[in-house]
């Protein structure tokens, strides 16, 4: 009960937001409503007009052609007006629906650029994508189309009633009396079928999960000869699905025939009442014909409306999910006094003082971390999984803000700099090799779109990517498909390195930058990295020894703290945690 109330309150807020997003198109909305009213009005005129027309045909030799002509003309004109109004209405609705969803998607993507990584890391990509794509679709279809359908549906019902009352009150009462029957049956069917639909979708979900798991692991399934048992499990679910689906589909398919049945009862009722009235001289044959025309379509809007209501609810839920995303708190914007830091002013000095940070309030991660990096120093960070290596990088790049203490770059607290300026100072190669859909060239030039061809090729050569790029069918213009799916993990990593080689930032962050490259190629890239790192402050996370040993300072992290700090030789001499890690070849310890 309580949650229901809360939901209603949210819905109210959602409705207001929806109205606000429609506001720029309110003229279209008004126009659409006017056209809807117009088209309903002219549409409802036609049964009356054709009734009048039939009334002009009293019998052989008694047809009043003089009166018939204008009526026929009026039918044609009404039909024309209805058609034009309908077309105009759909144009308005389409414009509104598509433009509002465009606006919402644009707002969402802008929002995504400003959301803190804390939010983005904490929400599955698939979920956010579906809010921006699928939810917006359902919203625009359901809400805007639904809204106008609802409006014209209600108008049609009211108009029909008015016209029927105008022609003949008692017969109209017959119709009004039978109507609730239709609503009741529709409600009953919807109730029944929803129960089975829920069960169907639940079993379907179960089956999809099994399918996903087994098809993805098909090679394992086959190599362990599990084809039979897996098929048995599948068939068991399949059998249940069949049972539920049969009922869901059957019950929901009853809507049409039962509506038609109720309709034909209304029809028979009108025919009876009308015919009896006509016998008594109360209504003309034409009037009866108009009545029957109305009775034929009278229940249709009722069904549409009940459909629209569920669609509207659906649309509001989807809109709510999107608004939730749009309402998320953004990164604290750069203050008005935030400073720019031109690359030539980056000295390369980095100082962390008393830094503390935690992802979750009750789980301390980094506590009281102090570190002073002199310009041009190379800092290697090592330690077991979850010790905070990647977190440190998140803090340096200001993907996350520290909870306590401060980080300074070139002597300035990074919170006094614009984020762009800070991030521009670093070049970053991560273990996660993200590439953009586009060409190889665009990807290498991602950080410097204005780079010349020679610069791009030179960077690729330094990253030892040139030779494989040349072998691709279209060389530097070869397309990179989604997630770089057409490239091997190692090739993707080489491209990420080339990207940084071209960017030439004042400072470097290499987070497992060569983890997917075999050791021989890595050895070759080392030289290039060496050149790149010369004179640049660099932070290196790696679990391969060769990458770390030459560092000026090795930070050994454990549980968010720096437990040891020094050069390789000094740390080995200490025979502490580092020496232990080293002696186990470092291997595996970094994963």
């Amino acid at each position, binding site marked *: 009960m309580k949650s229901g109330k809360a939901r209603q309150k949210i819905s109210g807020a959602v409705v207001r937001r929806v109205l606000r997003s429609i506001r720029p198109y309110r003229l279209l909305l008004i126009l659409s409503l006017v056209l809807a009213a117009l088209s309903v009005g002219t549409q409802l005129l036609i049964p009356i007009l054709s009734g009048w027309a039939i009334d002009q045909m009293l019998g052989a030799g008694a047809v009043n052609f003089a009166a018939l002509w204008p009526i026929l003309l009026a039918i044609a004109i009404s039909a024309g007006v209805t058609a034009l109004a309908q077309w105009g209405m759909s144009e308005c609705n389409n414009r509104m629906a598509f433009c509002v969803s465009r606006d919402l998607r644009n707002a969402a993507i802008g929002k995504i650029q400003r959301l803190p990584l804390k939010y983005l890391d904490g929400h599955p990509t698939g979920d956010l994508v579906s809010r921006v794509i699928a939810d917006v679709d359902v919203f625009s279809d359901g809400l805007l189309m639904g809204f106008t359908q609802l409006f014209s549906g209600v108008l049609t019902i009211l108009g029909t009633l008015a016209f029927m009352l105008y022609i003949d009150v008692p017969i109209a009462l017959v119709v009004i009396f039978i109507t609730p029957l239709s609503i009741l049956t529709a409600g009953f069917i919807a109730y029944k079928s929803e129960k089975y639909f829920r069960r169907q979708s639940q079993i379907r979900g179960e089956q999809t999960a099994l399918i996903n798991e087994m098809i993805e692991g098909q090679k394992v399934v086959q190599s362990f000869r599990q084809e039979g048992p897996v098929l048995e499990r599948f068939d068991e679910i399949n059998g249940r699905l069949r049972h539920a689906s049969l009922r869901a*589909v059957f019950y929901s398919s009853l809507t049409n025939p*039962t509506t038609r049945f109720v309709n*034909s009862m209304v029809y028979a009722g009108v025919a009876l009442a009308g015919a009896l009235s006509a016998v008594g001289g109360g209504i003309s044959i034409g009037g009866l014909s108009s009545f029957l025309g109305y009775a034929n379509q009278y229940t249709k809007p009722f069904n549409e409306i009940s459909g629209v209501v569920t669609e509207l609810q659906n649309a509001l839920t989807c809109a709510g999910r999107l608004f939730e995303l749009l309402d998320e708190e953004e990164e604290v914007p750069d203050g008005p006094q935030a400073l720019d830091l031109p690359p030539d002013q980056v000295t390369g000095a980095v100082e962390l003082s008393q830094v503390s940070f935690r992802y979750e309030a009750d789980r301390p991660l980094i506590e009281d971390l102090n570190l002073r990096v002199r310009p041009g120093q190379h800092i290697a960070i090592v330690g077991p999984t979850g010790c905070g290596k990647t977190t440190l990088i998140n803090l340096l790049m200001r993907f996350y803000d520290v909870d306590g203490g401060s980080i300074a770059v070139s002597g300035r607290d990074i919170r006094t700099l614009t984020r762009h300026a800070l991030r521009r100072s670093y070049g970053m190669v991560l273990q996660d090799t*993200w590439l953009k859909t586009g060409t190889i060239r665009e990807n290498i030039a991602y950080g410097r779109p204005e780079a010349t061809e020679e610069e791009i090729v030179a960077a690729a050569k330094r990253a030892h990517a040139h030779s494989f790029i040349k072998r691709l069918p279209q060389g530097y213009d070869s397309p990179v498909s*989604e997630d770089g799916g057409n490239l091997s993990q190692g090739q993707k990593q080489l491209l990420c390195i080339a990207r940084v080689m071209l960017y030439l930032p004042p400072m470097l962050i290499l987070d497992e930058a060569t983890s997917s490259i075999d050791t021989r190629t890595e*050895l070759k890239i080392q030289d290039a990295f060496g050149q790149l790192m010369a004179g640049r402050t660099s932070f290196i996370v790696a679990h391969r020894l060769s990458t770390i040993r030459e560092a000026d300072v090795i930070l050994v992290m454990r549980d968010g703290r720096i437990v040891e700090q020094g050069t390789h030789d000094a740390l080995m001499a200490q025979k502490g945690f580092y020496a232990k890690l080293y002696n186990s070849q470092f291997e595996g310890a970094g994963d």
Partner: protein
Amino acid sequence: MNKKTRHKLLRYLKGYGRQSVLAPLFKLLEALFDLLVPLVVAEIINVGIAQNNVPFILQRCALLVGLGVVGLACAITAQWFAAQAAIGCATAMRHALFQHIQVLDFSQMDALGTSTLITRLTSDINQVQNGLNMFLRLFMRSPFIVFGSVILAFSIDRRAAMAFAVAVPVLSLIVFGIMRLTSPMYRRTQNQLDGVLRLTRENLTGVRVIRAFGREEQEEEQFRRENQALTRMQLRVGRLSALMNPLTYVVVNLATVAVLYAGAQQVEGGVLLSGDVYALVNYMSQILVELVKMANTIVLTSKALACAGRVQAVLDLEPQMAFPREEVAPEGEEAIAFDHVGLTYAGAGGESLRDITFTVRRGETFGIIGGTGSGKTSVVNLIPRFYDATAGHVRLFGRDAADYPKDQIRREVAVVMQRPQLFSGTIRSNLLWGNAGADDAALWQALETAQAAEFVRKKPLGLDEPVEQGGRNLSGGQRQRLTIARALVGRPRVLILDDSASALDFATDAALRRALRALRGELTVVIVSQRTSSLQHADQILVLEDGQQAGLGTHEELLASCPVYREIYESQFRKGGESA
């Protein structure tokens, strides 16, 4: 879709023959009753009202109610049969497809990819179900009502019905023409939407890189551009398809005007009564509704047929590998022998393996090393016959690999794959995949060897600890050790570890190798690794580079003779602090 697909589809309807005939038949009956209604009303007007015949009116109105009741009964029967046939067919198809996927070759699975198989098993078959259901219900009804209305109109009066002869073709032209024009536009719009979806995903997955390079604005701008293009396309196709209702409406009403006019003339001439004119007008309005339904049915059916075609395409894939049925006895001292083996994957440009020759004796440990993409996995995939060599011969225990039945070769050779894949259930249920009959003692023994016993023991529920889908609730190293244990439970003659100790730390890796050595004599082990440290105690090591054999021998021999091996070794064990 072609006839063949349609024919094959019928196979799944087998067993539902009765339902698939009865469903449309009952629909037809219902339609027939629908068509009679205007005639009855015309009689009420022409006879009942004109002659003030109240009993006649009562009788005919009772008939109307009767027609409605019988129509409803027919319709419900039809829906029931249609649902039974459609769902039965979909269930059978789903079963057939899932079963068929189980026997596909690895190369066929590679070619198809998992995501499309999943789509075909789920949404494609659902589409078939919907399409078939709709088809059974409407393919008879709609044309029957359209043509029935025309015929009945003509039977009432030929002259007044002429408008029908014109209106029906014009309406069909509008309905089908617009559908034809818009369907490729809808497809293009869908593609554009996929593009917008891709951009959204990219902006999320690449958020760190985008922000690191400060490219937020450019990304947003590109999104806006693509989004605007999408909106334009949506508007264009929306404008066109919005023409359908108004145009058909105008045509129907002009035809009604024509019917009224012609009807009036016939009434004037004494050929028709006003009730007949009413019936004619009524038939005209029925036609439009059914035409639109018919068009929708055609769209849905053709979509369903396309989906059925996609399902059928997988079912038509015949496994390329033949396996004999008779089990054979393994013999000889040679566990694995490769004789000038080459492998070219289906559809690949070049050879993945060329001229590989080596022999592994029973009980030996054999190492395979090489860079990324050097063909290590390709070599081991030939041993349990996941793929067939395209050149040379692979022999297993003295016999050609192709002489073993599928079940036997997969039992004799257990592969622990690079990606440690577990399935939802419990630790026990995963281990039992190796051998369904294994008892707890056997499971624990396998866990001990795989260095997994300790962490399993620490789990609150031990062997019954739940495993989530894909083993998400376990660490990478734990997953790897469980997959090794799973392979050991089956007591294979050959165990292949395809880089499957990569997430283990040095000590655990060493302990694992020690434990495996203890099983020596019964077990031949093939270890694939990128680390020389994991292989240096192997009896033989095969060094691969670009799919070719770059060396074969013991660690010491290779260090002395194989430059590639030496380079790999040195890249991992380089001492001192030179260069960087």
